[in-house]
């Protein structure tokens, strides 16, 4: 393999939270060379959780959700509005959709996910919420009395339903699941969440899929797989996501589910070799976390882009410094605690660990009462691997510690 040009920049592909944290971490870890961040969106990195809540409910601009810019980032070059189309790991080049081919000294893969769409005609009134522009486009249509169908009942779908309901819309959730948030939370909690969402006036049609979206130029109704028809003005599709890996086609990276990385966030080839000059961060990274086991997983929680970005930046900086510190930095323990939050109406969910690892039989209420406030434990082989707070926060901290220490 030819050597990379040491005068070329570190190129970070993806200008969202993970790419930002990787760039910051490179600087903080002492790398003083050139850094270029290439991103498809025109906006500088911003915080996404408000997109399903405040951005829809109030007149929020990019400035209000943008991450603060740090002094050490002053000489980082931002190439926004361009999409990576191909990469050559041997020649150390990246091709973008403006026809440009650029050299890199090291590459950080941070291209994340995009929303999956339902396969129907593209008429007005169909929405997804992944980017700030998506949320702003939806905002104008969430007027009081609007009939909104939300397809999918994950956290995003339920948060969007709550926001639309609070704005005075008539909201119906359509989901193939038996209960809302069934997969991440398990049956016990999901049933309670259905009760609470229904009490707030959200209608839930479960165990069904969308058979058709009717309307000539704009949405008029949604036809379900059981034949029912729901009149609608707006359809919000929150039916999962795709990894943005197309630009990595033709490389020997393992892209079977996101991009495989080792615990140092180095990209791993299909031959199982970790590359010292290619890193993966954020939602797209499938990496092992020794807090749980040695299975590589993608974790789509808010904290992961920051934790993996910082880790990748530190390891890459040590590699580029070539000062003998690399092996020690790689060997440093990296076991980020997965954490997430979800606000729906006055319901505040907060969780630590990997709740999705366990089966329904291994979920039990640890404290409180499910219908009011509660802490719920998620066990695998009698070890605590996740804890969920419904309206509880400080009470979760001892359980968080227990999870971090192996759950015993």
């Amino acid at each position, binding site marked *: 393999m030819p050597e990379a040009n040491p005068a070329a920049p570190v190129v970070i592909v993806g200008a969202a939270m993970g790419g930002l944290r990787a760039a910051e971490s490179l600087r903080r870890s002492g790398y003083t060379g050139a850094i270029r961040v290439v991103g498809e969106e025109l906006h500088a990195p911003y915080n996404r959780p408000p997109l399903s809540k405040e951005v829809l409910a109030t007149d929020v601009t990019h400035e209000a959700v943008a991450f603060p810019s740090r002094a050490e980032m002053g000489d980082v070059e931002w190439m926004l509005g361009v999409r990576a189309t191909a990469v050559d790991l041997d020649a150390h080049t990246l091709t973008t959709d403006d026809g440009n081919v650029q050299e890199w000294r090291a590459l950080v893969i941070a291209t994340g996910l995009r929303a999956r769409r339902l396969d129907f005609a593209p008429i007005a009134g169909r929405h997804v919420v992944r980017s700030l522009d998506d949320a702003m486009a939806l905002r104008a249509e969430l007027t009081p009395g609007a009939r909104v169908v939300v397809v999918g009942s994950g956290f995003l779908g339920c948060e969007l339903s709550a926001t639309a309901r609070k704005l005075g819309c008539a909201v119906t959730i359509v989901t193939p699941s038996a209960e809302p948030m069934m997969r991440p939370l398990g049956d016990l909690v999901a049933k309670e969440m259905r009760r609470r969402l229904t009490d707030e006036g959200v209608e839930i049609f479960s165990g069904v899929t969308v058979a058709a979206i009717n309307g000539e130029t704009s949405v008029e109704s949604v036809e379900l797989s059981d034949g029912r028809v729901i009149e609608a003005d707006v359809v919000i599709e929150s039916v999962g996501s795709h990894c943005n890996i197309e630009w990595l086609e033709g490389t020997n990276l393992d892209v079977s589910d996101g991009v495989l990385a080792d615990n140092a966030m180095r990209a791993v080839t299909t031959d199982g070799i970790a590359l010292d000059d290619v890193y993966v961060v954020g939602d797209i990274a499938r990496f092992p976390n020794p807090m749980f086991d040695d299975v590589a997983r993608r974790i789509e929680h808010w904290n992961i882009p920051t934790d993996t970005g910082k880790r990748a930046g530190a390891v890459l900086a040590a590699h580029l410094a070539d000062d003998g510190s690399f092996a020690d930095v790689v060997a440093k323990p990296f076991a980020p605690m997965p954490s997430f939050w979800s606000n729906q109406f006055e319901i*505040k969910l907060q969780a630590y660990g990997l709740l999705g690892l366990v089966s329904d039989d291994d979920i039990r209420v640890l404290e409180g009462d499910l219908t009011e406030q509660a802490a719920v434990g998620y066990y695998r082989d009698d070890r605590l691997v996740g804890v969920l707070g419904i309206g509880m926060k400080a009470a979760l901290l001892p359980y968080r510690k227990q999870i971090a220490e192996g759950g015993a």
Partner: protein
Amino acid sequence: MNQCQHYGQCVFEAPDNFKLNDDDKLEYVAEAPDSERDNIEAAVDVCPMQAIRIVE
């Protein structure tokens, strides 16, 4: 937006400056020493509400 919702993530990054009390409310040191700067910057990064600002 940008207001503390008492998620307590800052507590893990800068335990000398942030504390979640038993009522689920956040307590913090408003004037922190320079020696705490790295920890507080890490706390800024992990705040889901992006509610922490460093003012020189």
